[in-house]
């Protein structure tokens, strides 16, 4: 195996005996990198039955061969380990962007395996091939921002630091690992805390080598940036009519237009017209401040930020002096659910505090700072729903001691004052009292506080819920996105599905008839029947099963290469002259350029499928399940019971039909080569992917049909 793309080395750190060693990456080549390396290590090294906070659990920070190679949107760190949020502590992966993954590669490592448990708080200091464990006593108990500053003052200003806050230290299930001020990986912060590992700092001065020439690199990047890439989530039409564009769609994240500014930049910078193909304006296409925070945010926008190597700047950076009133910095940065998660905690709504319209900004930017510093995760927005159910149903009054209940500033909550969040997140992060059980995650808090079936299945009218699985995770582009396609893939992971392959196309802004042509052009799908118009669904079919499979496979591929699935794949293009058809083979083109290997897109998809098959097999073993359809893939009732007055498959609703969804799942199992009744990979399928050892293990556990 060449060292093109891959550095060839994996750093193994045993915290129990304070030893480090180097593994050879080449034995994981079939698993590409990132998520693939993570799941393979978990399967090989962590015994079934291990719990998330056991020292025997491991955390694998891994990147792929394209990370560090300057490929657009490639600085993604995949973190794999047993997750404390689901009932069986099933394996899951969390991801973060930022600079960390690229820096890890420059220091010479494709991955870092953290195992064991330190006897007292430590942080890992990686300076190229010098690796040391340092005492973390001086930062333990402090937030991520302070921790990073202190560690950077020791490890060097340029080091990239992935740290946990108080939440992770206290083994709050809902906690993050974060690098930079806003790039967080949700769900594994507590595992890091359980190992007494406060942070990993990396400074790398080495290189990622590539097989192709710089000129070839330039040409392929240029092709992608001119012809394929859109705005955030690869939306390919602008949100307002533009002279260069045939279509526009008000929900598109391609928000750039004349007279829209980064208003707090000095001097203010106009986003302006950002035509497709204009490489020097790609970074202005998406104004995530006004998209996430509303029009008032324009004047508070310093600029957009984002990850190493990515021309799409999807994090908004805000300067809002009013934030100082809440005891936090006036500078804030985040995107999407990093903002909306905390906003969801304001279950009685938010009221304007300083000026008209700031109710839409304040809880989001204040909340993002609190959660990012404490290192609290929102379970993709569920923490607000969990809280809402307990509060509105009087559960909190029953389960909290009176003193504790009375100490909570309910008046702020009722008044819609975002200052409530300051109190809320302190209790969660510091594990203060019974209330902090909200930080255990949906499954556990619902069990502890005995939530009713209506929490899971929705009220009688089917409204008001977004919980997807009784394993405790919410929908994440599920049935509301391409019907059975989104629904199927939302059942396949052990946390919220972090898959954007499907939603990037349905949200692209293109008219449905164009989207259908685009999806029919994908080799693995080949039919317009794969996609229905929004809220106007048709029954399950084979093309949808193929679309669901391809969506997952590409998601897994990206998390292994590692590329950002929030942008990739390049299914659609912003160019009319391409008939808006993108290029789904460009991952393979970049892979071959960087590594010198000779992959087709089919071969890369096959390798990614191996990883997903392993994920499924591992999950089956960890659950000890003989019927994954029943034990794992079950969907909460509201998905089928919402809009009680209309039938599924009528225009205007995205409700699904139970029998049809069963059929959709059967069709999907068939595409995957799984038992069509139980959803468990068959011996033949595992053999096909060279997973014979896994098949043997499953067989000995009596889990193979």
């Amino acid at each position: 195996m060449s060292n093109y793309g891959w550095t060839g080395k994996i750093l193994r750190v045993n915290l129990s005996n304070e030893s480090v060693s180097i593994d050879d990456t080449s034995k994981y080549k079939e698993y590409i990198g990132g998520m693939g390396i993570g799941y393979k290590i978990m399967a090989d090294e962590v015994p079934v039955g291990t719990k998330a906070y056991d020292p025997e659990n491991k955390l694998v920070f891994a990147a792929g061969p394209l990370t560090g190679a300057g490929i657009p949107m490639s600085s993604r760190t995949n973190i794999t380990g047993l997750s404390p949020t689901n009932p069986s502590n099933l394996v899951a992966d969390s991801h973060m962007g930022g600079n960390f993954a690229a820096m890890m590669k420059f220091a010479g490592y494709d991955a870092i395996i953290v195992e064991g448990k330190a006897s007292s708080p430590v942080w890992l200091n990686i300076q190229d091939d010098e690796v040391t464990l340092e005492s973390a006593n001086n930062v333990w108990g402090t937030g991520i921002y302070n921790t990073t500053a202190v560690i950077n003052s020791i490890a060097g200003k340029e080091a990239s630091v992935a740290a946990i806050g108080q939440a992770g230290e206290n083994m709050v299930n809902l906690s993050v690992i974060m690098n930079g001020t806003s790039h967080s990986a949700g769900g594994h912060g507590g595992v890091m805390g359980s190992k007494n590992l406060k942070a990993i700092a990396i400074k790398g001065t080495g290189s990622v080598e590539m097989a192709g020439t710089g000129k070839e690199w330039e040409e392929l990047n240029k092709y992608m940036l001119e012809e394929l890439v859109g705005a955030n989530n690869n939306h390919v039409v602008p949100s307002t009519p533009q002279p260069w564009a045939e279509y526009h769609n008000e929900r598109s994240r391609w928000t750039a237009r004349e007279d829209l500014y980064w208003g707090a930049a000095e001097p203010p910078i106009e986003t302006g017209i950002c035509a497709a193909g204009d490489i020097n304006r790609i970074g202005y296409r998406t104004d995530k401040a006004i998209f996430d925070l509303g029009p008032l945010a324009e004047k508070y926008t310093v600029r957009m930020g984002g990850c190493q190597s990515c021309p799409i700047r999807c994090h908004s950076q805000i300067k809002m002096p009013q934030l100082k009133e809440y005891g936090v910095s006036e500078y804030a940065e985040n995107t999407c659910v990093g903002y909306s998660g905390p906003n969801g905690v304001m279950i009685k709504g938010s009221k304007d505090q300083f000026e008209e319209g700031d109710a839409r900004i304040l809880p989001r930017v204040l909340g993002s700072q609190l959660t990012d510093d404490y290192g609290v995760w929102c379970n993709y927005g569920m923490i607000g729903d969990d809280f809402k159910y307990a509060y509105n149903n009087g559960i909190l009054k029953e389960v909290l001691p009176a003193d504790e209940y009375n100490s909570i500033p309910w008046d702020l909550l009722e008044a819609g004052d975002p200052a409530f969040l300051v109190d809320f997140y302190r209790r969660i992060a510091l594990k203060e009292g019974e209330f902090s059980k909200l930080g255990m995650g949906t499954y556990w808090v619902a069990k502890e506080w005995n939530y009713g079936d209506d929490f899971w299945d929705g009220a009688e009218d089917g409204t008001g819920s977004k919980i997807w699985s009784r394993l405790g995770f919410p929908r994440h582009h599920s049935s509301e996105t391409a019907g059975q396609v989104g629904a199927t893939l939302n059942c396949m992971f052990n946390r919220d599905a972090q898959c954007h392959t499907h939603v990037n196309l349905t949200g692209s802004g293109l008219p449905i008839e164009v989207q259908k042509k685009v999806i029919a052009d994908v080799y693995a799908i080949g039919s317009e029947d794969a996609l229905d118009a929004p809220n106007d669904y048709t029954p399950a079919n084979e093309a949808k099963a193929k679309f669901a499979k391809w969506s997952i496979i590409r998601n897994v591929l990206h998390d292994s290469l590692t590329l950002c699935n929030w942008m990739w794949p390049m299914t659609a293009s912003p160019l009319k002259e391409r008939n808006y058809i993108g290029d789904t083979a460009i991952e393979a083109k970049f892979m071959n350029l960087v590594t010198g290997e000779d992959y087709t897109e089919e071969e890369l998809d096959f390798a990614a499928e191996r990883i997903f098959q392993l994920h499924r097999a591992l999950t089956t073993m960890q659950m000890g399940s003989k019927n994954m359809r029943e034990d794992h893939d079950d969907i909460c009732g509201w998905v089928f019971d919402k809009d009680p007055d209309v039938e599924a498959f009528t225009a205007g609703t995205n409700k699904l039909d139970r029998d049809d969804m069963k059929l959709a799942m059967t069709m999907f199992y068939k595409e995957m080569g799984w038992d069509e009744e139980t959803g468990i990979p068959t011996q033949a399928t595992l053999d096909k992917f060279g997973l014979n050892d896994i098949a043997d293990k499953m067989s000995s556990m009596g889990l193979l049909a």
Partner: protein
Amino acid sequence: MEQEKKRFFENEQTRRDFLKFSGKSVGGAIVSLSVLNLIGCAPEEEASAPPVETAVAFALPQGMLVADKAKCTGCQRCESICNALHDGKMQPYTARVRVAENYNYGPDGPKINWANADGNFGNKMMNPETCKQCREPFCGNACPVDAISADPAWNNARVVDTEKCVGCGVCAEACPWHMPRLDPETGKSSKCVSCGACATYCPTDALKVIPWEDIKTAMRRYKRNFA
């Protein structure tokens, strides 16, 4: 841009003439003091020539790279294109336009006021650093083996000849901004040649190659463009 360049060079005619006189082309490499002596151009013998202190024979560059701090979003794609074209490998440590190093806390690293100072953890301000292509380049003047010269192939940018470079690192030390960098893998120094590829591909149009002017003038004119 062409106009500005011309105007600038007109003002520098004396210098150009002197360089021609010394037997080197305008874009020629370093003419060291010993060479000047050899051609009978030592200061004591050539009263009409400029004093030798100002006559270090680096032909003036035509362009210099500047970065707009208000527009830079810290994506570091400039570092990648620089590495791709000049190194054929990715290694931001040696990239000649430098964003990542100042990304977190600005050029000075974390100080007690980090929450309000430059950088991602503070006021979000990026501080991209670029080579100023100095009139009297500290790097070139310090190089003990004359490996850094005004290279006509790069419009007289100050360029490291890696054949000559012995990897001593004096250039990096001498530069007030430490812009030349020794590649730890090759042991060779490298620095910006003002090729402009980073500007060509900057996704927010934050970089550009401007007609050269002395750093003192440029810093006044493009205040926000220097880290």
